[in-house]
């Protein structure tokens, strides 16, 4: 997967260009796939009449009808299980779990069935399905609305776990996820749902679901991150550049299966790595990346791999939420420490 990702393409132009925020890009991707493939259906809580509590599914019911855009009873286990049943029948269901904090009730269905149906039946049946869920903190929401537990799902063989970090990648990755023949957990960084508009290349093919995207080239250090933290990471890289430290920024994008080649290649060049994620540190997804660096890239490492992450505790309620989330200064401090090391 050493395929270089053309970052420039991130900001499309031309007649088909459409300005969209990340959440709008999600909506456009759903719209596009529903328009071109009758088997794509959408289900979840508040997705139909209301168009989703974040408006990600707005207008779909009006366009594609109640048969294809379904408000379900309030039951996440059921939503996941029905999605499996629909997928097995040849539909391409896209289910929304309203917040990642409410995804745990789907785990039995995801771990024991969605991820295994193809393997269990030796290919006779399969689950081409997507579970979408807004995730991450920083929006001053109540309890359970700030989860980022992608690592738990990334441990499950047979799943894909995909996290976009820009409107274009949300668009391209979601379209790919819907077309993918296997179950994809698509986690949307809601903190940046409306952070910025971007001109989308609508005609663009889907993006690959097994590739990291190198968003910024650099020679001194590799910053590995995903989701909403990409913003802070890019900002940190910018500021580091002003201080003479050239940082490469890798957006992992697909957490599972993990494209370590891109990361290893980058670290081979830079000799240093800082991993940034919002989730709790211990047993987080960053651990796997650091572990593989220790296994396969040890000789290239000029300094210990550092992780800048959320703490191993429950995200505080909104008054103290900001003390939990990593920020630009944390990244810069970790980089400076790493660079100072050697």
């Amino acid at each position: 997967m050493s395929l270089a990702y053309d970052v420039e393409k991130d900001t499309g132009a031309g007649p088909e260009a459409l300005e969209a925020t990340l959440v709008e890009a999600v909506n456009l991707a759903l719209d596009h796939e529903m328009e071109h493939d009758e088997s794509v259906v959408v289900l979840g809580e508040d997705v139909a009449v209301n168009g989703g509590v974040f408006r990600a599914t707005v207008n779909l019911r009006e366009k594609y009808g109640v048969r294809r855009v379904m408000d379900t009873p309030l039951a996440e286990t059921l939503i996941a299980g029905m999605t499996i049943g629909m997928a097995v029948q040849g539909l391409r269901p896209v289910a929304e779990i309203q917040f990642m904090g409410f995804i745990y009730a789907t785990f039995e269905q995801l771990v024991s069935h969605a991820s295994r149906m193809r393997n269990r039946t030796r290919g006779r049946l399969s689950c081409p399905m997507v579970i979408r869920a807004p995730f991450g903190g920083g929006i001053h929401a109540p309890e359970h609305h700030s989860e980022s537990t992608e690592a738990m799902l990334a441990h499950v063989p047979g799943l894909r776990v995909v996290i976009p970090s820009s409107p274009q990648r949300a668009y391209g990755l979601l379209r790919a996820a819907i077309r993918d023949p296997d179950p994809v957990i698509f986690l949307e960084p809601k903190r940046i749902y409306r952070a910025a508009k971007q001109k989308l290349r609508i005609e663009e093919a889907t993006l690959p679901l097994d590739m990291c995207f190198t968003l910024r080239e650099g020679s001194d250090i590799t910053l590995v991150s995903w989701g909403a933290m990409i913003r802070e990471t890019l900002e940190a890289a910018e500021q580091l550049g002003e201080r003479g430290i050239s940082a490469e920024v890798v957006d992992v994008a697909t957490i599972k299966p993990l494209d370590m080649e891109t990361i290893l290649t980058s670290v081979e060049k830079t000799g240093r790595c800082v991993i940034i994620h919002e989730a709790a540190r211990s047993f987080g997804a960053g651990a796997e990346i650091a572990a593989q660096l220790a296994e396969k890239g040890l000789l290239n490492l000029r300094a210990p791999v550092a992780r800048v992450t959320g703490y191993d505790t429950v995200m505080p309620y909104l008054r103290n939420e900001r003390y939990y989330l990593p920020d630009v200064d944390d990244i810069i401090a970790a980089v400076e420490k790493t660079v100072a090391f050697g």
Partner: protein
Amino acid sequence: MTTGPGVDIPMTRYLGEDGDPVADLPAWAADHQLLVGFYRSMVLTRVFDRKAVALQRTGQMGTYPSCLGQEAIGVAIAHLMSAADVLVPYYRDQSAQLGRGVWMAEILLYWGGDERGSRYRDNAVDLPNAVPIATQCAHAAGVAAAMRIQGRHDAVVCTCGDGATSKGDFLESINVAGAWQLPLVFVVNNNQWAISVPRSIQCGAPTLAQKAVGAGFPGEQVDGNDVIALVEVIGRALERARAGKGATLVEAISYRLGDHTTADDATRYRSPEEVNEAWRLEPVQRLRDYLHGVGAWNELQEKALYRDCEKAVEKAVREYQETPPEPPEAMFDYLYANLPHALEEQREAVIARAARMDGGGP
């Protein structure tokens, strides 16, 4: 009422929409001072709730779920429960919580983003708000089972919304409540909406109360805007529970007069006509009309009550606003009874980091 193939679910109402009795009131309701007490609690809840919404709208609090129109249910529950009973609430139970000794300032702290809002200085037993829908029902079953194991004769009241009745946790819990004959009263606040999803999409049965049939215990409906009916029906259920006769499912028919939360805009999915119609049924006006009718309440008292409530609410708001945030390391201090060694470093780190962020440190 016929409520499905071969099943009959009772429905109880005493006060009609205009506050006139539609049936003989229970004997206890002759105590007008008691009813006035209910009325006061309902008004306090409403005044509090309005203020809470205003705080959110003005950026002084986080997302908040208004309980507008749901005041009677909680007032009935709190009135009926003893101190040793346990309330296992959901997030729209402000009126019950106020009646159970939770401070208004605590409720504001909770929705204002401060964990101390669930510490309840004056209530050691009730469970805190449960945000993940219906999950609290299983806790309620556990609490009720514990009471039996411990040989206590108390009871549990567990509340949830209409949407919650679709979720496995609720359904598994009513099932065990029936199988184990637990001292447990489920009160479903059927306010017709689960965010944008109407009651009809949650369930194909004509009543939610009839879910009790499959669990093997009685289910009944009650007018959730009629506090007298609520006290009567939930009271009977609590007696059954305390007498060891098992669980009851009470479906209180109400209406969510406000948005789902301050983050919601209900005009996107329901008509103003529907909401206007629901306003005609709301519980506070109905009880006031009744009390007026029987001469137990007048305009002077009304004005004084609102003045008192507003004062009490203002005081609570001040307490809320004057409560400084916890120190950042509080995020570690209650995670385990004793901080594991492995977390000491992180606790130190957040202290240093907060100092840096707040300009006080390196």
